[in-house]
């Protein structure tokens, strides 16, 4: 395949911008255009639910250094279609972008509990910088809050609301964080959260409805939770609708190989892409995975062989006075081994080993300061032996 001369990157988030930078670093000197529907330059999404929401002076916590690709960035412009045969991206303003190399990095959006009824409900989510500003402003008045969703994002939002002096109830399907961190760590986080005043309600499911005093949460068991502020964090949906008639989707998923390749001339990276993992083909919506995938995708698009974005994912969360760093594919299932630390003091370095698949081992550091390179080395088969 000849090297492309005109590359279009769809998606202006960290995956898209990293792919653009990586194209240049791999020697691509052709025409480069990055188009994305957000009005802002790429920012750090992990910061939105951490420092930006929690710290009074964390207002710039999400800001990243400028990109180095020197291409054309079209912001506030979304893609609405892709014509693979004509090699053309269709834009929401009626414009078209021709390409001979395409990077798909359109990311995800928040899944909404009140899907289809957005206008009648006051449901906040946290996905974009605009969401974060909105939430920060509402939380400043110290309202009563119900957070729906017991995953890392829901728990981080709940933690920030508690820190801001709000009365907070968290609705979770099963114990919070169980699905991501396993039973042991889930229990540690729940204890820390309730000690700081979080009320946890486990429920089989929840829906939103409009009440007299605003939006309220109705649980599957029939209970009704009222609060001045309802925030949901129930997962995300990949932005693939614009690819609907492209022929690239497989049962609604945009599947790429370990090097980011979708088909000749088209690569994908970041939250939108489903990629091979030890747990099957799935999206890995994490910061460092988006960057790894973007670099691999850029190299693949230029015809370099043997690149792989399949590194062990890095995940971290800060909430309720706890800091957790983990390397490996979530969930952290089964019983961990204590490598170092002191459970009585809450400092722990834990390892999960998989007997049948060494690529599936994981390490987590709880309130234990350790750089990622060391954490990663503990994951390697030699360290586990």
């Amino acid at each position, binding site marked *: 395949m000849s090297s492309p001369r005109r590359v279009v990157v769809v998606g202006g988030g960290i995956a898209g911008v*990293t792919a653009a*930078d990586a194209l240049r*670093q791999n020697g691509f000197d052709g025409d480069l255009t990055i188009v994305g529907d957000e009005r802002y330059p790429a920012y*750090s999404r*992990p*910061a939105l639910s951490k*420092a930006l929401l929690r710290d009074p002076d964390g207002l710039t*916590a999400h*800001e*990243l*250094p400028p990109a*180095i690709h020197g291409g054309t960035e079209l912001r506030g412009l979304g893609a609405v279609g892709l014509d693979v045969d004509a090699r053309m991206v269709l834009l929401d303003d009626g414009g078209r972008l021709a390409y001979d190399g395409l990077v798909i990095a359109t990311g995800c959006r928040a899944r909404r509990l009140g899907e289809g009824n957005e206008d009648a409900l006051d449901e906040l989510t946290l996905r974009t910088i605009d969401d974060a500003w909105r939430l920060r402003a509402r939380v400043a008045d110290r309202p009563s809050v119900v957070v729906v969703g017991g995953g890392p994002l829901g728990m981080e939002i709940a933690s920030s609301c508690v820190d801001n002096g709000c009365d907070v109830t968290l609705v979770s399907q099963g114990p919070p964080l169980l699905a991501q961190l396993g039973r042991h760590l889930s229990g540690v986080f729940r204890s820390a959260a309730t000690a700081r005043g979080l009320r946890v309600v486990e429920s089989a499911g929840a829906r939103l409805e409009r009440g007299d005093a605003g939006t309220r949460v109705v649980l599957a068991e029939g209970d009704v939770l009222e609060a001045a502020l309802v925030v949901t964090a129930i997962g995300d949906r990949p932005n693939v609708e614009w690819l609907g008639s492209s022929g690239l989707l497989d049962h609604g998923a945009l599947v790429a190989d370990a090097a980011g390749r979708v088909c000749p001339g088209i690569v994908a990276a970041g939250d939108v892409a489903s990629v091979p993992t030890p747990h099957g083909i799935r999206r890995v919506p994490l*910061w*460092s995975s988006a*960057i790894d995938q973007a*670099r691999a995708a850029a190299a693949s698009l230029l015809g370099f062989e043997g690149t792989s974005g399949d590194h062990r994912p*890095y995940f*971290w969360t800060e909430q309720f006075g706890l800091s957790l*760093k983990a390397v490996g594919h979530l969930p952290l299932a089964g019983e961990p081994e204590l490598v170092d630390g002191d459970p009585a003091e809450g400092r722990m370095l834990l390892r999960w080993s998989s007997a049948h698949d060494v690529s599936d081992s994981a390490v987590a550091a709880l309130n234990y*300061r*350790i*750089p*990622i*390179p*060391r*954490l*990663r080395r503990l994951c390697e088969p030699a360290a586990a032996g």
Partner: protein
Amino acid sequence: MRIELDRPRCEGHGLCEEEAPALLHLDDDGELVLDRDEVAEGSPEAVAASAAVRVCPVAALRLA
């Protein structure tokens, strides 16, 4: 080009060390140490430095 560290922003993740182990590292206390802060523009070191800057989730590094 100069690598600049905004120390108060640094959270000690260490993703930068993975990108540019010849230029910076975290010490035993988890504090980031710049072993070299000048890199020649266009050099392999500059590419590594740029990758280190990009991967930091709290934007504690800059290349100026």
